[in-house]
């Protein structure tokens, strides 16, 4: 095992860190979020130019040839900077599904920044059950028609193509019989809205919508694999966010004066900042563990690792987030201060692809986390 980055990884990290520093200042981000799409096409192109949109695609797919570690480096930087572009929807979920279904026709367009994807999977009442799919796919001749309603589709409002899960056989809740289809987004009924963290999502209705391509007729193992990779990404993003909040909090404590001295001189507050550090380090370790396990072919072992990481990161995120606000006092309650935005992003990450409670239940149901 080697926790040091290779030279290539270090270069990647430097370039993504620099990009985020240059394009994601707090004021810049504010302007970006205010724009009609809620993110910046210019920044998207920059990401493409740096090769980041294809970071985990092979070189012959137009990518950078990286793997989970490279994704983690990107996630960490995006977490610090609160990047709003649809990277997660397009590159982690969308391109991930294309890659794992072996349908790589479109991935070069993703890497070039010419194609935005979204994954329409969640449905009302699914909670966090990935096999809860009622949307149906019907075959007539050699075309498939999709009918159903998908909810909370991340960046579903701006996607050019949507990958949708739909039932080809079996009952709601069966893992077997879930197909994955590629649908052209033009003409779909989409209701887009902002999310609490300043990103975007959409409700999407499919009414006998013709699929452009069948990605898989046995999609569940692929969905669960891509979701595991996605959770690993989110864990790393959360760690980036927590690290930034923690550093900001410590800095603030050293400069904010009350009662004639820096509040950081109160030992009781120092200990609180130290407890945040402990939580941050545990989260960082588990994000690494998730990264390490995200490409494991053993779905059982991979799933356990991912759940365990999501639990630790979720618990750390709550602790670090709440304490960062508390130790700042009123200032962190405002939109004009970065910490609150990190807090909101962390809260949303905690609610995505299984909240802490759900993953705890899952592991408890299995009897052990190892």
């Amino acid at each position, binding site marked *: 095992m080697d926790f040091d980055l290779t030279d290539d990884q270090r270069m990647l990290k430097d370039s993504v860190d620099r990009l985020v520093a240059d394009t994601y200042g707090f004021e810049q981000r504010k302007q970006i979020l205010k724009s009609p799409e809620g993110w910046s096409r210019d920044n998207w192109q920059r990401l493409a130019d740096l090769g980041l949109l294809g970071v985990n695609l092979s070189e012959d797919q137009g990518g950078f040839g990286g793997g989970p570690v490279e994704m983690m480096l990107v996630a960490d930087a995006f977490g610090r900077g609160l990047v709003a572009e649809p990277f997660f929807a397009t590159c982690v979920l969308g391109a991930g599904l294309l890659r794992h279904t072996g349908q790589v026709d479109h991935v070069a367009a993703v890497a070039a920044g010419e194609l935005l994807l979204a994954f329409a999977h969640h449905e009302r009442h699914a909670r966090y059950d990935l096999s809860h799919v009622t949307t149906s796919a019907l075959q007539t001749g050699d075309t498939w028609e999709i009918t159903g309603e998908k909810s909370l589709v991340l960046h579903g409002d701006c996607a050019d193509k949507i990958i949708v899960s739909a039932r080809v056989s079996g009952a709601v809740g069966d893992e077997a019989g879930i197909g994955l289809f590629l649908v052209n987004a033009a003409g779909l009924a989409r209701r887009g809205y902002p*999310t609490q963290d300043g990103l975007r999502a959409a409700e999407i209705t499919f009414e006998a919508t013709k699929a452009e391509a069948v990605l898989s007729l046995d999609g569940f193992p692929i969905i669960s694999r891509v979701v595991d990779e996605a959770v690993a990404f989110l864990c790393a993003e959360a760690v980036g966010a927590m690290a930034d909040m923690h550093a900001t909090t410590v800095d603030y404590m050293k400069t904010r004066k009350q009662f004639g001295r820096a509040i950081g001189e109160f030992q009781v507050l120092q200990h609180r900042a130290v407890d945040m550090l402990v939580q941050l380090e545990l989260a960082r370790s588990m994000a690494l563990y998730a990264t390490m396990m995200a490409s494991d072919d053993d779905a059982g072992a991979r799933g356990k690792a991912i759940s365990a990481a999501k639990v630790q990161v979720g618990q750390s995120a709550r602790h670090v987030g709440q304490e960062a606000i508390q130790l700042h006092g009123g200032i962190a309650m405002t939109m004009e201060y970065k910490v609150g935005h990190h807090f909101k992003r962390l809260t949303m990450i905690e609610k995505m692809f299984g909240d802490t409670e759900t993953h705890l239940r899952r592991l408890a149901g299995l009897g052990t986390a190892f």
Partner: protein
Amino acid sequence: MDLSFTAEERAFRAELRDFFHTAVPERIRRKLREGLHASRDEQVESQQILNARGLAVPHWPVAWGGQDWSPIQTYIYQDELQQASVPYPLSFNCAMVGPVIAEFGSQAHKERFLARAANLDDWWCQGFSEPNAGSDLASLRTSAKRDGDFWVIEGQKTWTTQGQYADWIFVLARTDTAVKKQEGISFILVDMKTPGVTVRPIQTIDGGVEVNEVWFDNVRVPYDNLVGQENKGWDYAKFLLGNERTGIARIGISKARLLRIRELAAMERMGEGRLIDDPHFREKLVGVEIGLKALEMTQLRVVAQERSLPRGKPNPMSSVLKIKGSELQQATTELMLDVIGPYAAPFFTDEELEGRNETPIGPDDAATAAPMYFNWRKISIYGGSNEIQRNILAKAVLGF
């Protein structure tokens, strides 16, 4: 020791419950139940309904509209009011400036302000905190200098809750810089329409606007707007903060939240069953309920001590109520997030939620779950942060 409510107390409770549920419009109470905010007009409407029955300012002196209730009755009143999701009478009027004027104001102040404050004809806001004077409030720098029959006020307040609605602000201002910082502060009433007063909204992380910066630029107000004596403002501020000894735990609000959480968890499907049937969820819910019961019994003990303490003198035990009460209120927001799950994500403004012409996304109350979680982080910060409450207990109770 008799640990039961008397028949009279039970009848009193029933009567209040009936009144709150019938007299205060369901449309307003429903908003609070669902985590929305009462508008300015709804706050006024509700408080005026209470005031017409003598229920807006029961803890004020009887001569100024108060009730001669026992502390237990006051507790029952708060509990029922909060459980019924009735907007709490505006605390700046009823819990803060009203009692200070009643105790220390001139006869003219009392006649001019008290009835209007009780009826929310005047909306008051609290001008204490400044950018550099938060926990260390006594270091405040906004100054008031005497100029003949006037005060001239210069400086800036911040975090002024609902300053955008306010007709009046009560200000702590420095009137003597030569003495110990607590001894040079005065308590002055300022009409928000006075030239030189500027209000700038601050958006909070939930997306709402409930706090403001208030700037004073050469603001001239009559000398007689001084409450009590010059340079005694710190004492009045302490009286003001000590006056609400028991309401701060807001136990009734947490009870109402828990009820709502149960209702929604019973409607939320999970796997084959419902979320409310999940043992892990239930354990968490019951854990918070136990905490709330322990706090309620503590509150009753504090309430019972009330009679034996001088009026307006802070009871350090109220810091226990503030710490635990704020933690439990915050815990209810986390439970609600657990119930709402992924549907905490969509963001809508209050206006969009009220004018709802599109179907809401996800379960009932989904749209308010996250904003409330974000917003309620404030409860352990304002009104003396939980760290400051611990300092108080360490000093006043433990003798450190």
